[in-house]
């Protein structure tokens, strides 16, 4: 087995440090929110994982487009890796959101644009796996998977905006004002928030890279067996 590339090892360590730092800041540095209490601290990882999930969805479609243009399998490995990692981040976002919503909204679930769009994204990811598992050759898996990823990423914003026409109760943390975006957070909260965002972005890159390496090893292994 080829050695793990040094860049990946560095990224492994960085993402571990990043997540630990973010966790430390959230637990010991940020103030307890005045009305919501300690449960508000879910927010930092919740937003960060929703962000990572959305990012990986876009990455999967972009890599799919890359495959359709170049027909190189490395793009397909990237696309598949992004989807697999994205499913996990999406799940974390949904579950952590539920934990927060139960005491604050007094319900586990509401049919709000963000919640519904995230859930639909998970269902699309699920359909993507079922599609791939029903195809016999790696070529067909790559080609049809890429088409599905590209078409579905185009529909997700439509879903979001069509639900947004209804009124939403989801809190808007980053509010648009006349002088640009403003944050409804104290400075200490901001530090923890951006640390979490950065940590989860590094973690996403790290996981996708690891999964990509696995896909590549698997493909070369299958070639050698034949």
């Amino acid at each position: 087995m080829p050695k793990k590339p040094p860049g990946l090892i560095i990224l492994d360590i960085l993402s571990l440090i990043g997540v630990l730092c973010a966790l430390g800041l959230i637990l010991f540095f940020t103030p307890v929110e005045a009305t919501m209490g300690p449960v508000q601290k879910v927010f930092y990882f919740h937003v960060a994982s929703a962000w990572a999930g959305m990012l990986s969805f876009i990455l999967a479609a972009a890599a799919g487009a890359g495959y359709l243009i170049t027909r190189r399998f490395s793009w397909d490995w990237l696309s598949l890796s992004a989807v697999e990692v994205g499913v996990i981040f999406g799940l974390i976002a949904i579950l952590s959101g539920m934990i927060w919503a139960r005491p604050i909204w007094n319900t586990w679930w509401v049919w709000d644009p963000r919640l519904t769009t995230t859930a639909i994204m998970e269902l699309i990811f699920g359909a993507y796996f079922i599609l791939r598992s029903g195809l016999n050759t790696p070529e067909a898996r790559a080609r049809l998977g890429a088409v599905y990823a590209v078409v579905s990423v185009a529909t997700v914003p439509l879903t979001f905006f069509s639900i947004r026409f209804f009124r939403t109760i989801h809190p808007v943390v980053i509010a648009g004002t006349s002088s640009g975006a403003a944050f409804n957070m104290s400075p200490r909260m901001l530090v923890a928030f951006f640390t979490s965002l950065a940590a989860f972005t590094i973690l996403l890159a790290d996981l996708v890279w690891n999964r990509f390496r696995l896909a590549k090893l698997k493909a070369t292994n299958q070639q050698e067996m034949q």
Partner: protein
Amino acid sequence: MSPILRYLRVIWQIIRKDIRLEWRGRQGVPVMLVFSLLVVFLFNFALQLSPDLQAGLAAGLLWVSLAFAATLGLNRSISLERESGALDGLLLAPVDRSAIFFGKSLSNFLFTSLVALVLLPVFSLFYGNNILNLSLILIVLLGVGATTSLGTLLAALSIQTRTRDVLLPVLLYPLALPILIAAVEASRGVLSGRALSDSRNWILLLLACDVLFTAAGLMFFETILEE
């Protein structure tokens, strides 16, 4: 013959072939129609609907039964081509593949719209409320158009898998959600007696779906069917 005329001729020939097959076999539209009526019956008893249905419920029921019926038609339309290698014959023809997509998707549109046009008066009878009007028909055509162009593309995807046509609803429904939301909301507006212009946003969204999914079909149909 100019290339554009030739392109249109290919589309027309495919639609004509599908219409002729449907006329002789009568296995698509009647099945879809009976199925959509059965969905109405199932929902009627499952949800214990009253005869004077509210606009919101009526719009929802209408679109759910149409979406289910469309899936049946889409599956049949593409699996027909798989029988005795008809698809290979189509693909060997020296014509643009996007013309094949247009042809298949338009014939699907035709059949599903036909089902809708029979469903609307029957629906009006059942729920004692005439829902047959021009605004609603316009919304139905726009919604069915978007569903069938996206569905034709995805049926070509799903037919290549081992599970064949079972997969289509799983691929289609999460992507068709914006169509469903916009169509239901626009229909609800019209059914509760408001002017069509009140639902302008929803109709624009439906139009956007029509354009987007037709463009997606044009772009990817060739890629999906290449061997």
